[in-house]
């Protein structure tokens, strides 16, 4: 009973934190004049801080690997599911801060293809949580409506349960006309799978192009016969073809990639898109991430801006 009560307290505390972070309680809490004033003061200070940061270059695209949810649950003696929920509650204010700051694209690594190897109960729990949160995106008070966010689900969606896949497609369709901000949610995603898919897609498209040019000709008509041609001209599939077929082609390359919990690897996330991306690995567990981490990352981005821009032009 004591444990249940503790879990409930933690859950209520996290829920309050989420609602406070999203500014959801400010309108409804009629008897919280002090908390409302405090909330407005905090919000004004944050906006003032963002105005100072905006003197320098602001990153256009941020990516997040949400690491440390299970370790957070273990640290606070919570169930793993609560750890993931705490991660989600920390994510929403972070998205709000990013969009308020002026970041246009935010990508999150919600579920890797490698995560399917976890225990079936854990995978089921994650899928259930994902479905619940995907449905929540369409609610009136969600961040999608607040900031006019277009949502893309990136990855091999065929690997997802039907209900999650349908929910994802529904959200993508409902937000297709939003054009102010973009949220890319990587589910059933790995970079290597993305690259393989891009290779297959570009081969198929090139094959369809060839068949349209000479219908009924088949493969035999296109044998490479001219040995004097440059090797690159002989190639049917070029780098630009792959770039057009890559899942993440709907957004520019990220400027900063956050991975929490102090881990310094990319775990098969955005490997193709991050040659000049600043990799930032704060030691904090994801449910504990806050505004200060975002501000620190942006300041470091501004310090490195001229070098990164030079490298982008060279590569």
């Amino acid at each position, binding site marked *: 009973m004591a444990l249940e009560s503790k879990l409930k307290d933690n859950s209520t505390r996290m829920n309050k934190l989420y609602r406070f972070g999203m500014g959801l309680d400010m309108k409804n809490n009629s008897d919280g004049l002090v908390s409302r004033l405090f909330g407005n003061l905090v919000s004004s200070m944050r906006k003032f801080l963002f105005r100072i940061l905006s*003197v320098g270059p602001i990153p256009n695209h941020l990516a997040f690997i949400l690491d440390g949810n299970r370790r957070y649950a273990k640290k606070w003696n919570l169930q793993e599911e609560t750890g993931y929920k705490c991660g989600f509650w920390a994510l929403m204010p972070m998205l709000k801060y990013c969009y308020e700051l002026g970041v246009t694209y935010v990508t999150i690594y919600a579920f890797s293809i490698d995560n399917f190897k976890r225990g079936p109960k854990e995978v089921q729990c994650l899928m259930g949580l994902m479905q619940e949160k995907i449905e929540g995106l369409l609610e009136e008070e969600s961040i999608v409506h607040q900031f006019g966010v277009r949502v893309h689900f990136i990855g091999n969606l065929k690997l997802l349960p039907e209900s999650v896949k349908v929910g994802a497609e529904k959200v993508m369709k409902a937000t297709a006309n939003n054009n102010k901000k973009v949220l890319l949610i990587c589910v059933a995603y790995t970079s*290597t799978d993305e690259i393989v898919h891009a290779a297959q897609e570009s081969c198929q498209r090139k094959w369809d192009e060839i068949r349209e040019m000479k219908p009924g000709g088949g493969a035999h008509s296109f044998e490479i016969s001219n040995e004097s041609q440059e090797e690159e001209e002989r190639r049917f599939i070029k780098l630009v073809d792959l770039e057009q077929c890559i899942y993440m082609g709907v957004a520019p390359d990220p400027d900063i990639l956050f991975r929490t919990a102090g881990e310094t690897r990319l775990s098969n996330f955005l*490997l193709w898109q991050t040659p000049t991306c600043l990799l930032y690995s704060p030691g904090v567990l994801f449910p504990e991430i806050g505004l200060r981490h975002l501000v620190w990352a942006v300041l470091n981005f501004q310090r490195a801006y001229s070098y990164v821009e030079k490298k982008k032009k060279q590569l």
Partner: protein
Amino acid sequence: MSIYHVYDLNRGLNVPKRRTNCRIMGLGAEVQKVLHWIAQSGKIGLCLLWIILHLIIGIWYFAVDIVRAIESYLISSGLFKRYKALDISKVRYLAIVIDSEEARQTSKIIELLRWLAAIGIKSVCLYDPDGVMKKFKEAIMARLGDAKLSEEVTVNDPLLDQKFIALEFVSFLDGKEAVAKAANLLFDKYYLAGDQEKPIFTESIMVEALKAIGCVETEPDLMLVYGPTRCHLGFPAWRIRYTEIVHMGRLKTMKCGSLIKAIHKFTMVRQNYGT
């Protein structure tokens, strides 16, 4: 009322109204000037605050660099016991990423490779985007002495008895362009070769294609980045799925102690590969 009187009356009535309008317009212009001045001052104030913020961060990093330099010196001198016994067997393949401008300092690269050889690292992949180190590979290997190219090392060589360091030289062209070449190979093999059924490409098919065009498939366990920022600068994407990426600062300020610390920290990492 006579016309003359109306005229006078009208002139009398109109003069104060025109003066009032002029005064109001003058006041409006003044207010606008003041608001414009406040806005300009506000912008200048924000710029000053931004500069102060970056100055504070610059001072912070300067202090951190001094502390790291002292720590590195203490590690090199053998003062810390925990750095004396490194479990090098965990570092089977090490990648060094260097900014192309800094990669021209071949003497620094050779010094770094000598440190790595002294620590016990047997296989190193050297990467810079423009392929500067690739161009100077003969010179680097000649000056280093006990070094061989990775491609020349036969599979039979037992790693533990290896008395040389195996080097691989990689550039940006071995990354995305190599994947495009592999995709082209697959296109030739499965689409152009006949009317056979087109298979669904898998990662193993892609790996075979990359091997066929001469790409090395070994994934580095640890990547040390020497440059102004922590970016992998386009290292072949296929090979860094689970590679730990550590920023070491600029090549010109490299320190042996920092190298030992980075390798030691890596040996303490436990990966779960997504499970």
